[in-house]
């Protein structure tokens, strides 16, 4: 049975005990999927599963605490759930997880930077390519060229937590090294150039906070330090220093918690590569604490705890 | 405030007397520094103004001194947020920004010849004070005037000096109540809506004007309905978070109406035409 059929079958069986199941449906054009809230058996027909199902549906869970819901999760998305469980922000018993072994999802910005999709007519998804029909003709793009960067180094193609798995466990097939490739390019710059790089990128930030609100782990968004009036941490001005400060603040609040799902960058209407800032911090956390967020529900995030001596931190050359 | 100048540019005023009304409520009497502006400042009872502490921000308050007494503009401020906290720190001779008058006002023309029944709770007495003083200054235009005013405790009642004055007048009736028994309190005890039900004023020829905390308003409106008051016989004022005060910044709307420009004064009949988003 294909993955989609298994998913439909599972949802069909569990739906009665749940308020709804969150999955994906076809969006407003052939290139966009959109989250689907399955409330009735009739809604199940609308469910889709393909590399356009980019959304990390775990983002919805914290606001649904106290309600019994089902959710479809890719491997990467399951890490958000684990992190939310670790932090007590959701309850395992309230959620039925339909896991999906996933070979990767596309980054629509990568497609849009290659071809003008504004008048696109059709999209076909092959195993290793995306074919897009535009008025000028038919464009075939190798899937690997437009997969999300996180997918190119994915170590968790199968969800780490689930009640039902739609298919067989998929072993990791991607090399780990490429994950930090873009980060390393920036690391190699000297401090001035690094600052200049980020000022250039972040200058187009419009402080809309979509990155924050799309983040499954930004759970204090209604009381965010970016806008709090008392105390006032940040001016509301739209200068580059405020923008840089906002993004540093955001990234630091995610240190040891960010699971690299990429919703922040995907939500950014200005296509700023902000996931790289988080990835850099993830890299530091890994080097310092040997820790990776959202992998084991029993773990405690390193910044949630305190050890008198950290084995990897050499304080004052002691 | 007219539309010829910059509606975002506050006048600078100076704090005169500061009155400690209640543990968390102070009244500030403010005079605009520009004498000409002060003399030409015209407003109607029920209109509001934005007070500014430069460096902190603005907040909206009803001008609770009546337009018939223009020596100063009085505002009563309950400590609730950042701006009100700082307004409470002001002392005599401190500068303060004033942007107003803004908003609509009580329909005092249409209320002429009617009996007026004021029902106030806590800081909600502020807008009622304006209208009550205005009516007392134009006493012959109105029928019987009654004020039912309640607070949590005797010390939470505002305008204590005036309450004494109103008590002594024979052209109005004053009924005070507090939520529970207190030593030396010989007036009524009970929540405002309950006392209202006991008093059971007849709706005949009356207009009820009510203002207070949301929960009090809700039960007062129910009580008035029970007593037979029609929706157009009941007037109240609304509160909303405001920034611009002139219907531009967007946040204080209820359906098509902006509380800052179409309000804060609404009849119950008008409120019922709005989408239920209070």
């Amino acid at each position: 049975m294909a993955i989609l059929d298994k998913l439909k079958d599972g949802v069909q069986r569990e739906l009665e005990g749940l308020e709804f199941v969150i999955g994906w449906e076809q969006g407003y054009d052939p290139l966009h999927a959109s989250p689907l809230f399955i409330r009735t058996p009739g809604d199940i027909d609308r469910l889709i599963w393909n590399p356009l199902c980019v959304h990390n549906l775990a983002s919805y869970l914290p606001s649904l605490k106290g309600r019994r819901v089902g959710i479809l999760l890719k491997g990467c998305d399951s890490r958000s759930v684990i992190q939310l469980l670790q932090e007590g922000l959701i309850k395992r018993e309230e959620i039925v997880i339909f896991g999906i072994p996933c070979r990767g999802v596309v980054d629509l910005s990568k497609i849009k930077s290659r071809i003008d999709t504004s008048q696109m007519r059709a999209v076909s998804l092959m195993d290793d390519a995306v074919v897009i029909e535009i008025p000028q003709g038919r464009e075939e793009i190798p899937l690997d060229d437009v997969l999300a960067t996180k997918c190119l180094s994915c170590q968790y193609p199968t969800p780490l937590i689930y009640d039902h798995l739609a298919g067989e466990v998929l072993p990791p097939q991607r090399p780990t090294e490429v994950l930090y490739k873009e980060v390393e390019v920036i690391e190699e710059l000297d401090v001035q150039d690094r600052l200049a790089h980020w000022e250039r990128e972040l200058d187009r930030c419009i402080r809309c906070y979509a990155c924050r609100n799309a983040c499954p782990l930004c759970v204090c968004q209604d009381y965010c330090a970016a806008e709090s009036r008392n105390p006032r941490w940040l001016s509301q001005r739209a200068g580059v220093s405020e923008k840089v400060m906002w993004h540093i603040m955001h990234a630091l609040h995610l240190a040891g918690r960010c699971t690299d799902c990429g919703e922040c960058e995907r939500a950014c209407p200005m296509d700023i590569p902000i996931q790289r800032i988080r990835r850099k911090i993830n890299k530091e956390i890994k080097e310092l604490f040997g820790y990776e967020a959202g992998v084991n529900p029993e773990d405690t995030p390193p910044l949630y705890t305190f050890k008198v001596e950290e084995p990897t931190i050499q304080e004052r050359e002691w | 405030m007219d539309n010829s100048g910059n509606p975002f540019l506050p006048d600078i005023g100076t704090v005169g007397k500061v009155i400690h009304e209640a543990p968390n409520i102070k009244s500030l009497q403010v005079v605009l520094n520009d004498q000409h502006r002060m003399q030409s400042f015209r407003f109607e009872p029920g209109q509001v103004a934005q007070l500014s502490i430069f460096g902190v921000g603005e907040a909206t308050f009803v001008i609770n001194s009546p337009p018939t007494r223009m020596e100063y503009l009085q505002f009563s401020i309950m400590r609730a947020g950042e701006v009100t906290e700082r307004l409470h720190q002001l002392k005599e001779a401190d500068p303060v920004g004033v942007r107003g008058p803004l908003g609509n006002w009580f329909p005092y023309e249409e209320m002429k010849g009617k009996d007026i029944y004021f029902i106030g709770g806590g800081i909600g007495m502020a807008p009622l004070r304006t209208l009550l003083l205005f009516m007392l200054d134009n006493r012959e235009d109105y029928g019987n005037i009654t004020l039912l005013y309640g607070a949590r405790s005797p010390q939470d009642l505002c305008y204590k000096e005036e309450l004494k004055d109103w008590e002594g007048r024979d052209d109005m009736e004053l009924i005070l109540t507090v939520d529970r028994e207190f030593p030396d309190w010989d007036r009524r005890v009970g929540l405002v809506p309950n006392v209202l039900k006991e008093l059971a004023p007849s709706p005949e020829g009356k207009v009820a004007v009510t203002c207070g905390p949301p929960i009090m308003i809700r039960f007062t409106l129910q009580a008035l309905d029970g007593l037979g008051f029609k929706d157009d016989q009941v007037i109240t004022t609304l509160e909303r978070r405001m920034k611009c005060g002139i219907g531009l910044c967007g946040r204080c709307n209820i359906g098509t109406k902006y509380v800052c420009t179409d309000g804060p004064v609404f009849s119950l009949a008008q409120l019922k035409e709005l989408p239920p988003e209070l």
Partner: protein
Amino acid sequence: MVSREARFLATDNIPALLRRLGNTYRVFAPVKVSDTIVLFQEFAESAGLALDEQTTLPPKELLFPQTEGLVSYRYRKDAEDLEKSEVQVEETLEAPPTIIFGVRPCDARGLTVFDAVFTDGQWRDPYYKARREATTIVTVLCTQPESTCFCTSVGGSPTGIEGSDIILTIVTGGYVAEPVTEKGETLLQDEAFTPAGDKAGEAGEAREKVSVERELELDGIAEQLLDIFGTDFWEQVTAKCISCAACTYVCPTCFCFTITDDTTGIEGSRIRTWDSCMFYLYTLEASGHNPRPTKTERYRNRIGHKFSYHPTSYEGMFGCSGCGRCIKVCPASLDIRQVLREAKAHG
């Protein structure tokens, strides 16, 4: 449209034109700043123009900046009595002469929503008004709608002139320029514009050919949205919304703002900043009460404002110009057209 003589602007003449105008005006035009982002930026020949695609953000920012100072203030201590202080307050209004070149009809029309509220309403906004008067809008008419375009559903047109001062129609070798206002007429005096000749006819034909399907029937939507105000429609339709507010920031007609004070030492500035009705804090009162506490009430207000309250208050004008950016940027691909369709069909 003022019927005045059409002029021709050769594509090759555009850089020189903008350079000349730059002596008198701030000149903004669409520039590709990354593979996927096109923004209005101050014209620089080296940057090149991106006139053939929709800009990522509308030109709203140039008339209604994301932040601007409203007034500045400065405290002064009394030397005689340190307990006493005074404060001086001054208006800070900047409205340099500006040209925005390469605007789309939907975005120009979006400005008419601002005009109705900020310059023609009960209260005038002197900041917007001054900038609007100092700005000339040069609009390039559309030739190819994008899949997210729906201007015709909200009363606009890919060849519409509302809000523009000059309209440019693409023809062979350049554009036919026609003035819409006196301001536009003035600009057409520049030597870059030559007599249009036969091109005028070509422009007329080109405009005839452009069409955007009118996919929404919005008659009665204002009343319908009120009728379904209290139904569970809103919870269902907003389930997928993540309340991120990107839709409001890219919108050519969203004008909500906040005001905050920004102080350094004894002086500072009262600034106005774009705000969003999609935020919890937007309506949170000091008491803790919030009349729109969840995304459901907030999204309902956003749709209500654009398609019910605004048209009711402003003679049927929707608070939406159909540019489709909110659809494009929505991380959940929530499609405002679909919401309106379902709202009409509900109940």
